[in-house]
């Protein structure tokens, strides 16, 4: 046993103080709200990197939708490994990432899967490759080991009968998927807008859109919760998802506000690209947050086969807690 829930929650609170400072500076947060903040529950929420996929999260942050639900969210972006660690120690009570959240749940009974904020609608772009089948014998790029991007690529390859690592080599290129394709260092890779628009401009070919293909797994942004925190504050998790749903609905109507939020958080200044990204992602921002058991099952199998043999002995149902997501409806 390691650090207790109490200390986890308190360190989450500590950090929220700095969020307060930044919140005052961000456009929408009013100073009266800072005074009222004493009644709000502060909670640290982590995500990996930043991308359009987190659209509602950004909007909720900018419009401070959280406050309506009694929350004060301190949003941080963490490294994959840091999310695993943060969830287990409780420094981050809620975090969204990929297989590493499942890994954390296998490694520690303090972590449960509490929902998802949707799946990433990847598209496969390639240069000098005519069809999916032609990938055989080529090298493809993925961002990092154990991330959504890699697992999506693996299931994509498997779905067309290619064995990753054997027929097709997967190379981790971090954030450089697009340039490595365009410069011919790798043959193909999975992209989302706005990168996909750049890919189009560069004349890369779109070989597949993953949301159109049956049986693709590993694209869900899995939400983990620190169990001791969740047990003490189930309402906080529930309210988080409720607020997220409201934000998600708002994105559909408040295009300009959404674009502003996206620009601020993703640092993408090209308004045209943002617009395209918005239109593309719009339908993928969720209002339901239940994680499919099959998805977790898939990730458990992947883990068992690669880095964490203990995953074999864990059943998906035992680590999923969809109660918060269910409560949203």
């Amino acid at each position, binding site marked *: 046993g390691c650090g207790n829930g109490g200390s986890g929650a308190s*360190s989450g609170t*500590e*950090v929220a103080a*700095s*969020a307060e400072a*930044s919140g005052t*500076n*961000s*456009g929408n947060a009013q100073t009266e709200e800072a005074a009222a903040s004493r009644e709000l529950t502060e909670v*640290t929420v*982590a995500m990996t*990197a*930043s*991308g359009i996929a987190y659209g509602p999260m950004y909007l909720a942050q900018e419009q401070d939708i959280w406050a309506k639900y009694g929350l004060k969210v*301190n*949003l*941080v*972006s*963490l*490294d994959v*490994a*840091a999310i*695993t*660690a*943060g969830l287990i*120690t409780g*420094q*981050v009570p809620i975090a969204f990432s990929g297989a590493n959240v499942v890994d954390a749940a296998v490694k520690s009974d303090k972590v449960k899967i509490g929902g998802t904020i949707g799946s990433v609608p990847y598209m496969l772009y390639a240069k000098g490759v005519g069809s999916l089948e032609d990938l055989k014998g080529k090298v493809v790029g993925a961002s990092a080991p154990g991330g959504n991007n890699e697992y999506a690529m693996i299931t994509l390859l498997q779905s067309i009968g290619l064995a990753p690592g054997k027929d097709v080599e997967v190379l981790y290129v971090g*954030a*450089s998927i*697009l*340039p490595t394709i365009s*410069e011919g260092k790798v043959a193909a890779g999975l992209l989302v807008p*706005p*990168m996909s628009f*750049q890919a189009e401009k560069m004349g890369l070919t779109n070989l597949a859109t993953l949301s159109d293909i049956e049986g693709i797994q590993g694209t869900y942004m899995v939400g983990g919760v620190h169990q001791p925190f969740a047990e003490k504050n189930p309402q906080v998790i529930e309210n988080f998802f409720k607020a997220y749903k409201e934000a998600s609905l708002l994105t559909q109507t408040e295009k300009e506000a959404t674009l502003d939020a996206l620009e*601020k*958080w*993703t*640092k*993408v*200044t090209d308004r045209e690209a943002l617009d395209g990204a918005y239109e593309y992602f719009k339908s993928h921002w969720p209002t339901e947050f239940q994680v499919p058991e099959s998805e977790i099952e898939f990730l458990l199998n992947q883990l068992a086969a690669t880095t964490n043999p203990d995953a074999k002995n864990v059943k998906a149902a035992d680590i999923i807690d969809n109660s918060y997501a269910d409560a949203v409806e």
Partner: protein
Amino acid sequence: MNTSQKAAEVTGIDLSSFPKRQWNRFYYSNERFILGASGVVFLLALWELIVRVNLVDPLFTSSPARIWTAGIQYVSSEGFVNDFIASGSELLAGFGLALVIGIPLGIVMGWYPKFNYLVDPIFNFLYASPRIALVPLFIIWFGIGMGSKVAIIFLSSIFPIVFNTLMGVKTIDPVLLNVPRSYNAKDYQIFKTVVLPSSVPAIISGVRLGLGHALIGVVVGEMTAATMGVGHMMFTAGQTFQTDLVFVGLIIIAGFGVILTSLVQLLERHFDKWRVDIHK
């Protein structure tokens, strides 16, 4: 033909041949600046040129003009001040700590051989270990707030400071130590009056090297866990391959570094004003 005529035919080091014209005067008193600036301007122009004639893709290499545009935009955005303050305070805390601990530690390691023998293998090991791989652990140990970043910056920058101070102490001219020793000076007096002044160049070089590490530490720290900071901005921009913005962050951080380095060099020039130039 007398000797003085002959002498005039030979170009020598006679100071009377020293340039008299206005431009030369100006040049010689500002040589350092003029040469330095021309080097920088030349490189920038070359870069812009290469991009303009489409030798390389600006998406990957950006260009001075593009960086300028993106820079103006970023600097005038509301996020900049927050980013700058966040990164700046992390840097000052982490690097300041490294200075305050590193210099005395280096002196003590250089001065007391037993202490050095005891900790040297540990220091060697710690320094040789790629601490960057442990960064996720830092978040557990020091939290996701400023703590972990300060710790990363501190641990990045303390080693060159310690090692160079140690080296400076070990290479003191032992003759100089005879004097304070003959007066039975206390160790701290010797540190103050001999060890520190004679190690100035080594320490300054260590500080300069440590500063470079510290700046990288800012980016690494903010890459792993942050919501703001110039490093975080760079990381986010890198994710969406906004090379211009990445360079803007790079230039802000490096510019800050250059300013601090210049301060450090000023300090060095102050302490080393007694030193004779080795150049002919």
